[in-house]
């Protein structure tokens, strides 16, 4: 049998007050850093809603998304130790949707089901091609992430390509979650898989070949 305590324990909690002693440019161990020093992209762009403008312009009215969601799309898990909304799950959702629609696109095309799993089909959705697409559209500079090692400059080794590919997948995921499968499908077919669009993934693969 339980005996409820008549008087609840003190509701006050101790709060630790931390004084900011911003030591710039060098970091001092034990001191809280000024958020402005680390809330920026590797290219030096401050973490700000204004930075989504290039992505906003690219999407236009047809595929418009909320500014905060766009900022989340551009933010990787490694940024600010995950304290800002990041794109991990949007990216997973978008990646699966892209693969799903790409398979349907291939099956319904002239190539048919035999083209599924082919080298060209796999290359179209590869990390490098998705990263090339993001770079081409010009919103690579405003991607917020933290390099594990600043000395690595090769984008395939530093994880940069994977981060860029993740942003494109997250964009598809964001369209899917907020606008539904119809809009996301239109975006995928029109912007990514169409042969008529010169910037599409299919045409990037052909150009690289």
């Amino acid at each position, binding site marked *: 049998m339980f005996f409820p305590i008549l008087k609840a324990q003190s509701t006050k909690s101790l709060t630790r007050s931390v004084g900011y002693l911003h030591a710039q440019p060098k970091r001092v161990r034990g001191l809280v850093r000024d958020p402005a020093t680390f809330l920026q992209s590797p290219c030096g762009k401050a973490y700000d809603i204004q930075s989504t403008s290039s992505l906003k312009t690219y999407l236009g009215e047809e595929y418009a998304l909320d500014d905060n969601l766009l900022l989340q799309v551009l933010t990787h898990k490694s940024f600010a130790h995950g304290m800002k909304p*990041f794109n991990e799950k949007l990216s997973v959702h978008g990646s699966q949707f892209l693969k799903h629609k790409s398979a349907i696109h291939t099956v319904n095309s002239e190539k048919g089901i035999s083209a599924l*799993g082919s080298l060209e089909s796999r290359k179209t959705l590869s990390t490098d091609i998705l990263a090339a697409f993001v770079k081409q559209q010009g919103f690579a500079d405003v991607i917020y992430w933290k390099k594990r090692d600043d000395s690595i400059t090769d984008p395939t080794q530093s994880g940069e390509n994977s981060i860029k590919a993740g942003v494109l997948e997250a964009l598809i995921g964001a369209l899917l979650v907020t606008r539904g499968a119809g809009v996301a499908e239109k975006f995928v077919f029109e912007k990514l898989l169409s042969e008529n669009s010169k910037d599409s993934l299919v045409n990037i693969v052909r150009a690289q070949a």
Partner: protein
Amino acid sequence: MNSLIRTSARKSLRQFSTSSIKFNSQQIIASEEQALKSAPLVALHERLNLPSSYKLGTLAQALTCRSSYKQELAHNYGLNILGKNFLTYYVSEHILATYPRLPLPVLNAAVASYISSDSLYAVGKYAWGIESDDTTALSKYLNEEAKEHSLGKLRFLPISQTDEAGVTKLSSRDRKSIHPAAAYALGVRSIIGGLYLSTKSEEVTKKFIQDHILSRKLDISKMFEFEQPTRELSRLCERQNLEKPVARLISETGRKSDKPIFVMGIFSGENKLGESYGSSIREAKIRASVNALKNWYLYKPTTVSVPSDKDYKPSVVDHGIVIV
């Protein structure tokens, strides 16, 4: 006389194993006439309630793995990829719509619980009753089994599970041979791929996945494992701009006995985030933190709709897991 029988048997066996069904040199799908002669194939088609547009030949193709000895028959490689994409997307869409805040490792585990090879093996073998074609060509010949009979069975080259006593294996494992669970998973995925190919309808395929794969019960709440629940909860409250979580004793009994029970609650300001019990205050506090975290991660919208629904209503967009 004996030699005559042996020669005749060898000739028939060769015919059976290499050209049991007359096909062209190209890999082709078995014709409907041939497929209709396979009782297991017709029965499977009926059992799965597949539409009439789903040809028996396509179903036979879905059951033919690349490692099958019937090389002349079209195999299920492409159908498997198509089916896998459908399965992965619709299963994860369903889980994400039901639990929008589910952490990615738990989401992956939940998706795997539905569509891993072992799960699909159980579906294929025990729910759908697909048989594997594991009788030898000699047995088939001696049993006078119809050539088309095996079209309704799963055909693959299995990994030899046991070593024969006294037999030394000289060659390495055949690279094409696969585990039965993997073969069954290929078959199930290919049947789903074949359904889309036959109907060209995403709605029909989605319904089939809902009926056969997502209809199984899965308790996601048992998939969580927190290393530092109190710290994670504190971090979560900080990120969500909530007041710091405070543990309060709600009730207790038998403090001085050998079996005390404490009931603790975790509060953020006036709001109770979680509650649980324990044989010590510390245990109860940790359990209450876990309860609070589960309440957060297992949030479920009142009306669940998935993005592929026509009347889809957007729900919560998750900000990501808490990194401790």
